[in-house]
């Protein structure tokens, strides 16, 4: 089972690190699916939190920490450790403990899963961004525009759009670490 996933995902991430946007989106969609099943099981058992929040937090973390993967080393344990850290983090913030082992992660790979509920936390964090970053992130994510379309629409340079997008995503990710209000 896992060798297929391992080879495919490692290949996609390697291409992504070389700048291939389509491979990167493919990689992220697969990761979302894996983490979703894992999070749904864990969080349902503890009766708390929206699994999709964990999925999105993990995707952001993987994005901002993708330079910690060493090409050539296994990618599945890296994804698993990242998701595990984020699930435990969510529980810690809600005052619970959770144990996750890798066996369950492996079983999860067999199943199919689709997003059912959209997350609230990322949406909330997006709303809290500074105006410039928010309009850029919203244009690219919610409206599905490309970098160049966004630049034209907002009357910005493409490099400025890229910077605002990166800072906006980093700011959204940073918000999760804070205690809930």
């Amino acid at each position, binding site marked *: 089972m896992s060798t297929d996933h391992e080879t495919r995902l490692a290949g996609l991430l390697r291409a*992504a*690190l070389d*700048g*291939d*946007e*389509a491979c*990167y*989106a493919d990689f*992220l*969609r697969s990761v*979302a699916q894996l983490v979703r099943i894992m999070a749904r099981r864990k969080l349902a058992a503890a009766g708390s939190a929206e699994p*999709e929040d964990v*999925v*999105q937090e993990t*995707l*952001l*973390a993987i*994005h*901002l*920490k*993708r*330079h*910690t*993967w*060493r090409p050539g*080393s*296994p990618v*599945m*344990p*890296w*994804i*698993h*450790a*990242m998701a*595990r*850290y984020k699930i435990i983090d969510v529980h810690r913030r809600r005052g619970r403990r959770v144990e996750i082992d890798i066996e369950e992660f492996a079983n999860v790979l067999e199943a199919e899963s689709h*997003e059912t509920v*959209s*997350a609230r936390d*990322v*949406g909330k964090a*997006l709303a809290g961004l500074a105006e410039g970053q928010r309009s850029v*992130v919203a244009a*690219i*994510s*919610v409206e*599905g525009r*490309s*970098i160049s379309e966004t630049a034209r629409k907002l009357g910005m340079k493409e490099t400025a759009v*890229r910077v605002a*997008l*990166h800072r906006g*995503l980093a700011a959204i990710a940073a918000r999760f*670490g804070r205690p809930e209000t």
Partner: protein
Amino acid sequence: MKTDNLISAIAADNARPVIRQGQIWALATGAAVLVAAATFFATLGPRPDIAAAATTVHFLFKFVVTIAFAGSALLVLDRLARPGADGPRSLRWLGLAPALLAIGIGVELLLQPTAQWQMLAEGKNSLVCLTYIPLIGLGPLGLLILGLRRGAPTRPGLAGVVAGLVAGGIAASFYAAHCTDDSPLFVATWYTLAVAMLGAAGGIAGRLFARW
């Protein structure tokens, strides 16, 4: 927000060049060594008889131990900064330098009369050692914690301790050029204590600053 929408935004952010964690460590440790060197030469400086000392096994052995310690701790730190890289298991590499030191102590105990042991362990510079190794290591510790923040330690406290040990190893490697107490008995007693202080400081710093 829908996850697919978030994925579009993340994928669009991929064009920026990614600085690899290995490059981050190269930068952080390079800067750490420079800062340690600057602090060392501004405060203590090498001992006056360093040329003569450098011909003795006792003096050189100190560097074998401290440099081996800094190097192995750096490898462990790198593992701890990468999720799923078996960080905790790599902790055993930290045993390398203590094992070398234990051999040195064994030889020292064979060569030196029992009556000398206590005097050799106490030395003359214990307070200087306990003051200056932490002092020289403080800047390097800060730089390594910065490097750790760019990583993704799933155990930030533990990774912070190891960052403190790397800083301690670097600081001790400079301090050893100043200190006239060359016995492995002195190194095992006071260097260990001084490096442990940096490890403790690193643990706190890791918990505070290396979460993600």
